[in-house]
């Protein structure tokens, strides 16, 4: 099963809001909404793998906290700078949630 990790992204949250509205209006069943979310997980994992192109480097002044449980890292960094060629982005605090990368076979679904 694909990671449900991406449900907290903008796309994931907007989808969940949309589904909640549709269920409340009675246009779809909660079961169907669940199915959509599961499909979202699959599509998101796949979509990122295929369409994301950027390679980003970052450097943090400080690793504030780190936590690892069930192969999931939760990290908090301070004073981070992201770079990609000429693009630079600096932020004070960043939280990273990372799941272990899965080895996928070529055919999905």
């Amino acid at each position: 099963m694909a990671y449900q990790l991406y449900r907290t992204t903008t796309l994931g949250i907007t989808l969940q809001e949309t589904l909640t509205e549709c269920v409340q209006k009675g246009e779809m069943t909660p079961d169907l909404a669940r199915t959509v979310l599961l499909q979202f997980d699959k599509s998101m994992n796949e979509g990122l793998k295929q369409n994301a192109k950027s390679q980003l480097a970052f450097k943090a002044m400080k690793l504030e906290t780190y936590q690892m449980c069930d192969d999931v890292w939760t990290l908090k960094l301070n004073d981070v700078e992201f770079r990609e060629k000429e693009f630079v982005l600096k932020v004070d605090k960043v939280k990273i949630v990372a799941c272990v990368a899965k080895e996928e076979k070529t055919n999905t679904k």
Partner: protein
Amino acid sequence: MALCQTSVLKVYHAVIEDVITNVRDAFLDEGVDEQVLQEMKQIWRNKLLASKAVELTPDPSEGGSHPPPIVANNPKVSKAANAKAKKAAAATSQSSLPASSMAAKSPGAAGGGAAGSGLKNGQMPIKQEVTSQNPPPLHPTSGGSMPQRQQATGGGQTPIPIVASLDPNRIMPVNITLPSTAGSGSSESRVLTIQVPASALQENQLTQILTAHLISSIMTLPTTLASSVLQQHVNAALTSANIQKNMGASKQLDGALDSSDEDESEESDDNIDNDDDDDLDKDDDDDVEQEDAAEEEPLNSEDDVTDEDSTETFDTDNVIVCQYDKITRSRNKWKFYLKDGIMNMRGKDYVFQKSNGDAEW
């Protein structure tokens, strides 16, 4: 624009299309109409645009599952796109927009028709929408239904009968109303909500804790940040006040009140000894200490908060959700090898295929 920004829309569109295509069967199996599916897709896209997390680029080859050659029909398209933006605004207006002029007058049909014209045409009107949604509206709390409300700028208050009868340990939400600040862009006074034990209200401790100095220093902060600063300050002040009170009040901390932890009771025994010896002095010192702590806290919290960032990160936690190939550590040097990630920084989304980083712990 960096690749991590420009590819966001592309990834999102691909995902949306993929989801819709794959759930279509499930919808038909359940007997749900295709119309509902399309509506769901539309609402999803509108919410995405309304979230402002995605950068819309002027690049014609960008995004848009079907970019029709509309360059020639500018007036018609921009009007349709305007209608679409209005519809998007209407969708969000229920929850947030104070500007009633943009709300609800959306010609629904035109909005739907413009949907297929691709996002890039919506760039201008959506930018207008962005500026009108900014400043985020703050709804003042209505009515005096909360008996615990206290004015931060006011002086001492008498304990309210309802509050006095509460269990002192019960945590109550307290609304603190701040007058509007010049630079906040909001003409309404702001209300911050913090959680305090009822004992603090019963004993009027809040007026001592919420000094004018503290209030003026958080005045410039955005509401959520101000709330959390205030909350932390209150918690710290109450904790130190409680410790002082407990030490003064109960000399015996063993027997009936003994905690099972041995270390803890040893500590309290030591404290009791000190208390017996220097009771009065300690009380005085603690009072002064508490005031100092009250004054130091706001100074320290000013150090932590930077103005430019606080206005932009108003309600965002900069988060990266991704997968990791490897995370290694050597002494206190950490290295991260990440991939397939989505970042939300200061409200904006970025996407990466791979990301490597370093940090020191």
